[in-house]
């Protein structure tokens, strides 16, 4: 397992022009405000344009998996925890919220809170049992728990619909006092909902990565023992990160259930866990934009390859291997390197 360049402090970048901004949390000067502004506008712009250049369901899916992949990147890029069980939390959130929505509880806040809570709760259970395992053992354990959750979903037909998936899910309704109620039956309004949650997740995670929590988590990725010897309860920090990632994955799962009004059993399959790791690896772990780009590329390629050949996962696998072998920091890392070559000195850290 390779440690990445992600230092826990690089802020999100704009899609148009990934600029490495300096990081360090320890200078007196506040971050370059204009650069932040440009980045924010770039991301909001990209989110607004997305549904105009592709089918809106695909655009929505990209945002959903973007959320899922950013959560995974908190573990992979920042904490260095390669979880291969994230689909379990995505699935838990999707089934829990989906169950409510299929049984007449259509309140949006309720669905989101339940998705978040159930994803986080299952992640806490899995995390407590696996967080102290290192490297490959951690991977295998999270993977095994994913299988366990899959099996439970598969067998618990009365609640989950078993292998047919959970059908009859309705889109949620948001009741606002004095304003009225919004339904998300229309795909554009649902896209708006996904965008809001996507941007909120990004803001929260980018801030988190640059908070003391994020920096110490990044420190423990680079040298866990040293971080303990500085007085930090590393396993506890990792567990909390695991729960946060699980909770956010749960929200992504709930959005997925709402989007297609069905929660397919495939969504809790371990392959989903592998895919989200691929998304992070393809896009790059150095900041939260990487996983989003990774998710977009992955979903786009999945669509493309599945048109070409029924054995599309094979092509996807080859693609992932090529990226891993040639671009150690993923697509975003590659692009920012290019721009630092062209604009001399740009890649340098300024403090």
């Amino acid at each position, binding site marked *: 397992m390779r440690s990445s360049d992600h230092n826990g*402090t690089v802020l999100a970048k704009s899609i148009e022009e990934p600029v490495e901004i300096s*990081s360090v949390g320890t200078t007196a000067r506040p*971050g370059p405000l204009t650069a932040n502004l440009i980045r924010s506008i770039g991301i909001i712009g990209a989110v607004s344009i997305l549904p105009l250049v592709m089918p809106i369901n695909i655009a929505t899916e990209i945002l959903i998996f973007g959320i899922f992949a950013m959560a995974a990147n908190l573990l992979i890029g920042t904490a260095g925890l390669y979880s291969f069980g994230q689909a379990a939390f995505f699935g838990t959130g999707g089934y829990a919220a989906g169950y409510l929505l299929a049984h007449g509880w259509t309140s949006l806040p309720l669905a989101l809170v339940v998705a978040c809570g159930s994803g986080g709760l299952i992640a806490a259970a899995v995390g407590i049992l696996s967080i102290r395992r290192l490297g490959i053992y951690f991977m295998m354990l999270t993977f095994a728990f994913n299988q366990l959750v899959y099996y439970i979903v598969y067998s618990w037909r009365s609640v989950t619909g078993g292998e047919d998936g959970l059908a009859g899910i309705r889109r949620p309704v948001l009741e606002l006092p004095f304003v009225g109620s919004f339904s998300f039956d229309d795909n554009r309004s649902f896209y708006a909902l996904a965008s809001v949650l996507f941007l909120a997740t990004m803001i929260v995670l980018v*801030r988190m990565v*640059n*908070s003391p929590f994020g*920096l110490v988590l990044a420190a423990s990725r680079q040298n866990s023992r*040293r971080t*303990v010897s*500085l007085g930090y309860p590393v396993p506890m920090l990792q567990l909390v990160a695991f729960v946060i990632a699980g909770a956010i994955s749960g929200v992504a799962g709930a959005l997925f259930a709402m989007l297609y009004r069905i929660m397919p059993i495939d969504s809790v399959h371990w392959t989903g866990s592998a895919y989200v790791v691929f998304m992070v690896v393809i896009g790059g772990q150095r900041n939260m934009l990487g996983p989003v780009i990774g998710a977009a590329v992955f979903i786009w390629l999945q669509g493309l390859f599945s048109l070409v050949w029924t054995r599309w996962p094979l092509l996807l696998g080859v693609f992932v291997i090529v990226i891993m072998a040639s671009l150690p920091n993923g697509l975003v890392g590659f692009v920012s390197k290019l721009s630092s070559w062209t604009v001399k000195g740009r890649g340098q850290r300024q403090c």
Partner: protein
Amino acid sequence: MLAQNQIVLAADRLSKRFGGNTVVDQVSIAFAKGRLHSILGPNGAGKTTLFNLLTRDLIPDSGAIRLGATDITDLTPDRVARMGVARSYQISSVYLDMSARENVWVAAYRARGGNPFVFWRQVTRFAETREWAFSCLQRLGLVEIADVPVRELSYGDQRLLELAVTLACEPRIILLDEPTAGLSSKEAERVKRVILALKGEFSIIMIEHNVGIVMDLSDEITVMNRGAVVAHGSPFEIRENRDVQEAYFGS
């Protein structure tokens, strides 16, 4: 014998086995407040393992550890660290993907009682921590390289940074594991001056192979071999000790 109130850290019949190998064997040792106490001994003597036991990185098989009047035998290593025991490692253990500034920040934040479960406030906002961390870099003469990714620093600078990180912990006791290992003689001289400056201000326990440095800096020396203490005394007494002479001074 040391008076009870002079002892900052003490091991009482501490033992550690790896498999069938007794690496630390019934070691009793007391470290005095404000003194620099060196531990000498050949490779494999169990010095680093003793450090790992004292900081609770490793769990002792038997024996007890006291920090001042407190028994810390059953504490976790992060708790021991928070009680003022800071260490540097034999193998550089700085954070390679961060800048030197961030390295010391992580240490300084916790030392100043910072809560790691702060999720929203940005690292840049902690002015006091930042200043204290920076002063530790200044003290080691690392200001110029403060913002260079540590991965790109020379090994010597990484070792100095390791000392700066240890200082940023605002410790009561500093454990240094071969602070000059792998350094050029010029760099070793720089480290020596730093340690000399720290002496008196902190209680220091130092494992070191460079006999010259040990003799010049130490108030007290303990010699270990095969997991056991074989000699203990002032630098003068150790120099005069025959067994030690044979092993170390080649006479």
